[in-house]
């Protein structure tokens, strides 16, 4: 068959299947991410059907998907929100980092994946899915709850941590020498801090530069700027995703709202392709051997997120039920864990089992998280006078 025709047919079939999966996810009120991953596993190497034609498109699309995911994450928060959030909740944020990074890193060492593997898997287990958490909070009518600002400020801290973590990870994955690595990490951190400061003071200039009343012009401006900044960041070894994230932070106010609205469908499309592409590159037969470890990691890191949430909510003066709700809302891992694993796999610096473990882990956590958030209250209630500070069975 004509290669173009084959590509179109495969792409069309995949996107159509994604539509069906997203509808199914909506029907059973869960995040579509695990279904996209499963879809990718089914179509990929060693899966049910093998897709060859769309490989190139899937590759570049998933890069764009990551850029859009991070850009939209940056758009969500203004620089001011990030800094006030940081000042108010850094203790909770640091506890979150320590408790949730260590289990992943420790397991990577245990499985003999070395320092690079530890850095990657620690990131995978650390970062909660702000997308799933925000949706759970809205869907369960918890917007007005007192623990919600606590949850959100921890998510804000995680996102700032990502801005530092991703450039460092990119450098480590590139496998440069210690001294060279130190230099590029230094450059990366300097760039990140400069951009954050500029965003704080002069964000409105950036907003004005991309702003337009015409939605078509606006879309092209924002998308073009994002890809340009991502490309430049990538050339400077800062990681494309972080470039997009920083641009997102710099754009603020009404421009940011409009950009979010206009980019959402694009993000949904390209991020879906990114999740599928990640699944495509993972051999389904590599999952069963690591499933046990994924489960162990899931149980431990569900508990550590719970402890984080309970502790932070307690500090904010929230009563017992609210504390457990805060912990449960943080459990879900999703898009950004896959982004981290995806970066690692693309660099070839980590074994394939790590991708399989990350896939299995996110599959579990993206399903477990929302369920835990929904049922933590009845569970805690049923436990009656259960001791405080001890994680509920999630």
């Amino acid at each position: 068959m004509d290669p173009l025709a084959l590509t179109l047919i495969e792409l069309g079939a995949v996107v159509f299947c994604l539509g069906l999966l997203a509808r199914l996810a909506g029907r059973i009120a869960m995040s579509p991410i695990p279904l996209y991953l499963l879809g990718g596993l089914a179509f990929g190497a060693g899966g049910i059907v093998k897709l060859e034609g769309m490989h190139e498109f899937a590759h570049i699309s998933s890069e764009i998907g990551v850029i859009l995911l991070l850009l939209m994450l940056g758009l969500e928060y203004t620089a001011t929100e990030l800094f006030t959030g940081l000042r108010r909740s850094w203790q909770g944020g640091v506890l979150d980092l320590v408790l949730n990074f260590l289990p992943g890193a420790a397991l990577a060492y245990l499985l003999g994946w070395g320092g690079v593997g530890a850095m990657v898997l620690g990131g995978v287990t650390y970062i909660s899915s702000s997308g799933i958490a925000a949706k759970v909070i809205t869907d369960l009518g918890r917007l007005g709850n007192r623990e919600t600002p606590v949850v959100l400020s921890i998510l804000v801290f995680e996102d700032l941590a990502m801005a530092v973590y991703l450039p460092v990870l990119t450098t480590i994955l590139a496998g440069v020498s210690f001294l060279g690595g130190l230099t590029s990490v230094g450059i990366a951190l300097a760039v990140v801090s400069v951009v954050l400061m500029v965003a704080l003071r002069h964000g409105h200039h950036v907003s004005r530069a991309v702003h337009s009343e015409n939605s078509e012009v606006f879309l092209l401006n924002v998308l073009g700027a994002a890809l340009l900044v991502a490309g430049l960041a990538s050339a400077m070894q800062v990681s494309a995703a972080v470039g997009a994230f920083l641009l997102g932070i710099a754009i603020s106010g009404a421009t940011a709202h409009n950009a979010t609205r206009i980019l959402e469908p694009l993000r949904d499309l390209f991020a879906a392709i990114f999740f599928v592409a990640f699944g495509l590159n993972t051999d389904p037969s590599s999952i069963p051997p690591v499933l046990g470890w994924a489960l162990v990691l899931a149980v431990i890191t569900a508990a550590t997120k719970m402890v984080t949430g309970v502790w932070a909510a307690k500090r904010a003066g929230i009563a017992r039920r609210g504390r457990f709700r805060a912990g449960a809302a943080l459990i879900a891992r999703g898009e950004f864990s896959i982004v981290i694993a995806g970066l690692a796999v693309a660099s070839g610096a980590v074994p394939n089992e790590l991708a399989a473990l990350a896939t299995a882990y996110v599959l579990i956590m993206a399903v477990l998280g929302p369920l835990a958030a929904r049922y933590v209250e009845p569970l805690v209630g049923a436990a009656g006078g259960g001791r405080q500070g001890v994680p509920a069975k999630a």
Partner: protein
Amino acid sequence: MNVDETNLPGLGLRKDFMTASGRRIGVVELREGQTELIISTWDDPDTCQASIPLTSDEAATLGNLLGGQHLAMKLTEEHKDYPGIVTRQFSIAPDSPFQNQPMGKACIRTRCGVSIVAIMREGEVLPSPGPDAVLHTGDLLVAVGTQEGLDAAADILRHG
């Protein structure tokens, strides 16, 4: 009255206060512009019993109802020494002949001796509106007069 404002990063702004009966009540203004009315449960001020999405029209109407009630209660209190004087609220229905018309056109004071002392619109009070104040659908008029006069005024506003 002390209203707490809490930033919800990425989502919006929560404004609420504690009622004398121990419930937290307020609104969440979402980034996308919607408003949610929130009410905490009776036993736990951390938990919301209800989180009700309101369109901007609905929010404005609710604001008028609550604010209008407050104004009417105050006026009634002030007039209680004058028997026969009553305060009442009229809302301008979408089919009122006076919507988008200056209030003076209805000639309410001339025809039934009723004074419109305030117009509540989108949660704001326009005190002592003049005859050229334009009426809109959803406006709440606070009127003072005799029982019969107010009945007549209601009829005029509804049917012209």
